[in-house]
Structure formats: structure tokens, C-alpha cells
């Protein structure tokens, strides 16, 4: 025995209902559909369903409803707008399913739906904009901090180099150490902003793992020596070869973990081990510092959270950044610690082995000294002009200063230089435009290529990329240490030679 549905029941349904033939021409409708469309049943029957829609909804209907009906014989709750008789559009959700002899459809009024979706979109946009604003703010703060830092650090270096009288040299060392510490804090903020902004794309390159780790440990090793801590670095032979890695990210991970370990340890030792576990490279940093309760671990790994002890310093970005970096590289960060028993951080990274390096080129010689080399330095900040000029002159270079990019181009037109150091942000013409113009001129005149180092407080990865794309050979972050400047200069001059 079958029980037929009562057609009269459809009259009270709070949803528009229709039956249509194979070509979606309306055959029967309920009162609610008449109300939604502002038409009588007699007016509706015989119309194509498509004709009830606004023109833009007809596009949606043709592009997705028709396709879905052809492919799947039904659609569920598609958002469309009816063209109501009062010329106002009426948002609805459309459901259609195939029947033996055509189609059956339901049209559900969804007036709040549009407002809800608009709210979602607005909320998403606001969140994205807030994130971008924060990134811009941090980048601007960092830039502003770096400019005076360059002067402080540079002046400290110069005093330290020029005197061996104890009290003065000691004070200079204090200035340098404090400025270096400040720079590291600024770096922490920037690393984090860079990663948050999504600029932290992974760029794999073959590198010597041992070399990268050793270099990245240098800062922590010095700090450890100053605090009287033992610092041990062990690299297992099977982990020491060349691997495919993202060198800057790898350096950041090692630097952050070792810096933290030394910073929080007041006696005992810091030990760094690099080993291999199957396909993973395992970096382990262990210290004999205060350790922490594991319940704090989750908090430590969140940005802007800091350890429990009030004596601790830092922005608390370090561990969160390391975790993000490790995850970007396809690995992870593990923490094991107990309060009072030191901490152990383990980073696992799936670093594939790279082709062995080509036979090492002859050991690079220190920069050749065929008479003083001429350097053009474009920089608008007088303090930085003075500091970097002094460092360069101390290293035996002839230095000419230009106040901005346009002046630098004029000087380059007038006489040849061995090297150009270019600030990025300058009045009149910035360093990027000047570098692009220089490269264009060289091409047009078939002139030899003058190496350009972009020395700038714009240090986010997008700035590095912009510098290289403009035609710079290298990007160097302010503040600049004499060693870093010397290394960068000898590297670009060698490459150019």
C-alpha cells in the first residue's frame, strides 16, 4: 500500500517549490514561489526558471547550475537572486533534483545570507589588512632603529680599532656588544614579520652543512666565551656532507637556538650536535641553564610569549620563529626540558643530500692590493656616511660620497670606480632606481659592469630580492660590521674579476 503525499501540504511550506519539464520550463508552482517572485501561478507556469533570475544570476545559472545538472542531475543550495516584480532582487538558495519526467526544485528565501557573506568578507579583509599594517609597522620601526645603530656600532668599532688604552677600549667594546645585542633583537622581530608575511618562501640550494652550522654558531660561541661557558659543537661525519637546504633559514634556526641557549645559561655548557636519523638531519642544542617546565613549552613556542623568569630578556620571538622555519622546511621542533635541569631543543629537517661540490677552487686570496681601490658610497645620512667611510678608509679604500642615487650616477659618469655601495632609501633618486639606471647605461654603452652592493636598513627578504632584481650584486644589512663589509667587498670584487 502506498501513501501519496498531499499536494495541498505544499501550500503552507515556507519554501518556494516547483516542478519543471526537461527544458526547465515551469509546470507547477506553490504559493510561496508566487510570493517570492511577485507573480501569479498562471504567470509563472510556462516560463523558463532562468527567466525568474536577475541577469547576473542568469550568468551564474548558466555557468554552474546548468553544468551541475547535466553532470550530476542535481544542485544543492546555490545562492542566486530572483528578479522580483517590484524590481528588487531577492536572494535565494536554489535546490534542484532530477525527476522521472523533468525536474523538481526548491527556492529558499535567504535575505540574511548576503549580509552574512558580506560580513565574512569584510572580516577577512580587515584581518588581512591588520596583518599587513603590523608588518609594515615592524619593518618601518626596524629601519628606523637600524640607521642610528649603524652609526653607534660603526663608531664603536672604530674607537676599538684605534685605541688600546684600556678604559677607552673597554668602553668601546661595551658599546659594540650592546649595539650588537640590540641588532639581534631587531633581527628577531624582522625574522618573524618576514615569515608571517609569507615572504619566507623556501629556496633550496646545495650547501656544506658543517660550514653553515659552524658559521651560524660563531656569535653564540663568542658570547659563551665572554660568559665563561663551555661551547661544544659536534658534527657527525654522516651528517657533514653537502645537502639541499635553504641556507638563510638554516642559519636563522641555528643562530636562534644557540643564542638562546647561551643567553639563558649562566654556568656549565652549551652543546650543539648535528647528526642524521634516517632521512632527517637532526640538530640538537642542549644547555645547562635553568630549563623550564614542559607546561611552559607550548607557551614558549607561541609568538610573543616569554619564559617564566622575570630576568629573561628578548621579545620571545626566537622559538616561535624557529618552529615556523623548521615547519617551512618540512621538519619540526621538539623540546625537552625540566625546570632546573637544562633544556634540549631538537630540530629535525628532511635535508636531501646534494651532489658533491666541484673540486674546490684555489683558496680565495685576501683582496688584492694593487694600489687603493676606489669606492663610491651613495648615502644620505651623514652619520652613516662618516662611519662607513671611516671603516672603508681603515681597510685601505679610497672613498667618494654621493648624497643620493642621481649624484652617484653623475659621479659614475665622470670617472670609473671599482665598486659602488648603495643605500636603498635616499631622496631624489633611491638606490634601486640608481642601480637599474646604472645597469641600463652599462648595457647601452657596452661598458664594463661595476659591482654594486646594496648596503641598507631595508633587510626583509622582499628587500633583498628587490636589490638583486634591480641589478645589485649583493645585499648587505645595516648595521655593518667592518668584517662583514670586508667579506662582502672581497666577494663581489672576486666574482667581478
Amino acid at each position, binding site marked *: 500500500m502506498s501513501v501519496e503525499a498531499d499536494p495541498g501540504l505544499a501550500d503552507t511550506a515556507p519554501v518556494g517549490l516547483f516542478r519543471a519539464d526537461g*527544458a526547465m520550463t515551469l509546470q507547477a508552482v506553490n504559493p510561496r514561489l508566487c510570493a517570492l517572485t511577485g507573480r501569479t501561478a498562471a504567470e509563472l507556469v510556462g516560463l523558463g526558471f*532562468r527567466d525568474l533570475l*536577475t*541577469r*547576473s*544570476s*542568469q*550568468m*551564474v*545559472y*548558466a*555557468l*554552474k*547550475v*546548468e*553544468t*551541475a545538472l*547535466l*553532470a*550530476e542531475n542535481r*544542485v544543492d*543550495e*546555490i*545562492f*542566486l*537572486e530572483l528578479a522580483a516584480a517590484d524590481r528588487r532582487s531577492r536572494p535565494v538558495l536554489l535546490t534542484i533534483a532530477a525527476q522521472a519526467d523533468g525536474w523538481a526544485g526548491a527556492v529558499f528565501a535567504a535575505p540574511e545570507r*548576503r549580509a552574512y*557573506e*558580506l560580513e565574512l*568578507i569584510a572580516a577577512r579583509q580587515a584581518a588581512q589588512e591588520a596583518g599587513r599594517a603590523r608588518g609594515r609597522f615592524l619593518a618601518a620601526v626596524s629601519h628606523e632603529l637600524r640607521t642610528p645603530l649603524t652609526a653607534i656600532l660603526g663608531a664603536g668599532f672604530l674607537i676599538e680599532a684605534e685605541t688600546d688604552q684600556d678604559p677607552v677600549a673597554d668602553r668601546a667594546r661595551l658599546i659594540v656588544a650592546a649595539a650588537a645585542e640590540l641588532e639581534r633583537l631587531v633581527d628577531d622581530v624582522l625574522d618573524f614579520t618576514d615569515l608571517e608575511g609569507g615572504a619566507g618562501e623556501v629556496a633550496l640550494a646545495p650547501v656544506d652543512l658543517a660550514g653553515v652550522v659552524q658559521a651560524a654558531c660563531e656569535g653564540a660561541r663568542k658570547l659563551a666565551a665572554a660568559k665563561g661557558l663551555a661551547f661544544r659543537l659536534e658534527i657527525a661525519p654522516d651528517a657533514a656532507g653537502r645537502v639541499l637546504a635553504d641556507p638563510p633559514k638554516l642559519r636563522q634556526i641555528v643562530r636562534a637556538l644557540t643564542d638562546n641557549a647561551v643567553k639563558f645559561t649562566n654556568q656549565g655548557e652549551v652543546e650543539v650536535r648535528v647528526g642524521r636519523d634516517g632521512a632527517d638531519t637532526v640538530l640538537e642544542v642542549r644547555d645547562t641553564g635553568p630549563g623550564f617546565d614542559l607546561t611552559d613549552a607550548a607557551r614558549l613556542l607561541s609568538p610573543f610569549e616569554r619564559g617564566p623568569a622575570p630576568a629573561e630578556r628578548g621579545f620571545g620571538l626566537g622559538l616561535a620563529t624557529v618552529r615556523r622555519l623548521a615547519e617551512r622546511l618540512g621538519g619540526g621542533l621538539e623540546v625537552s626540558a625540566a625546570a632546573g635541569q637544562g633544556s634540549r631543543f631538537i630540530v629535525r629537517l628532511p635535508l636531501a643530500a646534494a651532489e658533491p661540490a666541484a673540486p674546490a677552487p684555489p683558496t680565495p686570496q685576501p683582496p688584492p692590493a694593487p694600489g687603493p681601490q676606489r669606492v663610491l658610497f651613495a648615502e644620505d645620512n651623514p652619520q652613516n656616511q662618516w662611519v662607513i667611510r671611516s671603516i672603508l678608509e681603515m681597510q685601505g679604500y679610497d672613498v667618494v660620497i654621493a648624497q643620493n642615487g642621481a649624484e652617484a650616477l653623475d659621479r659614475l659618469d665622470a670617472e670609473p670606480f671599482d665598486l659602488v655601495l648603495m643605500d636603498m*632609501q635616499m631622496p631624489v633618486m*633611491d638606490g*634601486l632606481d640608481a642601480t637599474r639606471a646604472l645597469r641600463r647605461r652599462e648595457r647601452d654603452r657596452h661598458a664594463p659592469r661595476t659591482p654594486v652592493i646594496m648596503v641598507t636598513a631595508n633587510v626583509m627578504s*622582499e*628587500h633583498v*630580492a*628587490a636589490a638583486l*632584481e634591480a641589478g645589485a650584486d649583493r645585499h648587505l644589512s645595516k648595521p655593518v660590521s667592518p668584517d662583514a663589509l670586508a667579506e662582502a667587498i672581497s666577494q663581489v670584487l672576486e666574482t667581478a674579476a
Partner: protein
Amino acid sequence: MPHTIVRRAEAFGGDRAAILNAHAVHELGAGAPPLVLLHGFGSDQSIWSRLAPQLSARRRVILYDHMGSGGSDLGHYDAARYTTLDGYADDLVEVLDALDLRDATLVGHSVSGMISLLGALRTDRIARLVMVGASPRYLNDTGYGGGFEPADVADFLGMMELDFQGWARTLAPRVLDHPDRPDLAEELSFSFCRSDAEITRRFAKATFLSDQRAVLGACPLPTLVLQSESDAIVPMSAARFLAEHLPGGRLEILATRGHYPQLAAPDLLAAAVERFLAEHRA
């Protein structure tokens, strides 16, 4: 001061396999001259799954996904490149070059009618065009019935944005009713969920705001313009204009309705293509 970095999608550097991979290129059948099926806005190569097996009985058939659609590799998506249809036409030429296709027949659905036309103006690898539900311009103009007012298109873009989840969901119908070809079903499954609203919106703008009327006269290739009896996206006036202004154009009305004859009437469409190919042999 902000520095914008423009990265042109030059990533392939002529790397054949990379190009084919990035566009999820698939092939069926064998025999010359080869035929390329190009999907339109809002779908991907699986839109051809009712037609490709028939056409591939006699010739090599190639399918691929436009960048940003279906199984294409979004890593190669470049907003600047795909702001107009030219980027899609450049891609077409790259794919034809990578496959070293000659004397090819292009079957372009919807906006891909114009993409294949722009491709034909860039390379001599294309010998014939079949346009299905194509329009040289979707907006009305003085003396031209494109079908839409600018406000309609703006509303449409807004609706798409409002209901992107629903839109993406419905744009992923399983057009895969080929029990005899499970491999096809496997390979051609839609993957629209990966795509994002911004990409779809940009493609929609490139499509519905384009105007290719001025270049129609430059294409001498034999061109079959196929139009269904009733198409909400392309009015008959636009299809007629297209066929009349293409020097080698001929309009044929398919006895079916809607914008997707390859789904609604694949047999009719296949027969029309076979007749056209028989008339215009290599």
C-alpha cells in the same frame, strides 16, 4: 617606501616537461592532424570527458588546464600575466611548442574560442578553429548585442565573491560518467577547491570584459562557430557577429540548449566537428 617585485612566469625556460606538467596536459588516441580541446571559464579539461573519447577514436586529442584552473600548478600563476586573455594565449602557444604540434585543430569552449583565436595569431601551428559557445565581446555596445550591461557583469563578480564556497563546490561536478574509461575519470577529476577566489575573479574579469572584435578580421583560418539554440551566456546576435566577421567563419546552430553542448549533446557536437574536419583536411 614600497618596492613592488614583478616576477614574470618565465620559470619554464623552454623546459618542455615542466610546461606540460604545469598545465596537466593529457592525451588520448593517435593520428594526425592533432586536435586540442580547451576548456572555458569556470571549468577544466574534464568538461570534455563526454566528447574526448569519441573524437580520439580517429586522432590524437590533447587536453590541458588553463593556469589557475583544474589541475594546473598554481606555483606558476602570475597575476599580471593572466589579467587579460593574452597570457592564456601565450600559454597555448607554449604548450603547442612544447608538444611540437603542427596542423593542429583547436576546439575552444566559451572564452577559449577567443583564446585559441589569439593563439592562432601568434603561431602557425594552428590550422583550424572550432569555437563552441564563444563570444567576441560579452558587453553590449552601440549596434552590438553582447548580452550584458556592465552592471550585470559587476553583479556577477560580486555574487561569485559572495558565494565562493558554493560556487567552487558546484563548479566541481563529477563529469565522469565513463564506466568504460575509469582511467579518464581518475585523471580528469576536478580540483577546483585548490583554486582561490582571487584567481577565479581575475579570470572572470579577463573573460567578461574582453573585446576581441577588432582582431577577428586578422584570422584567415577555417573556423566553425558552434552555437546552441539558447545560451544564457552568448546571445545568437554575438555568435552571428563572430561568424560573420571571421574571414573563414561559418555558423552552425546545434539542436540543443544551454552553454555546455559538450555535456548536453556530445554526439551532436562530435558529429559537427567530424564534418568540419572532413571538409578541411590537412
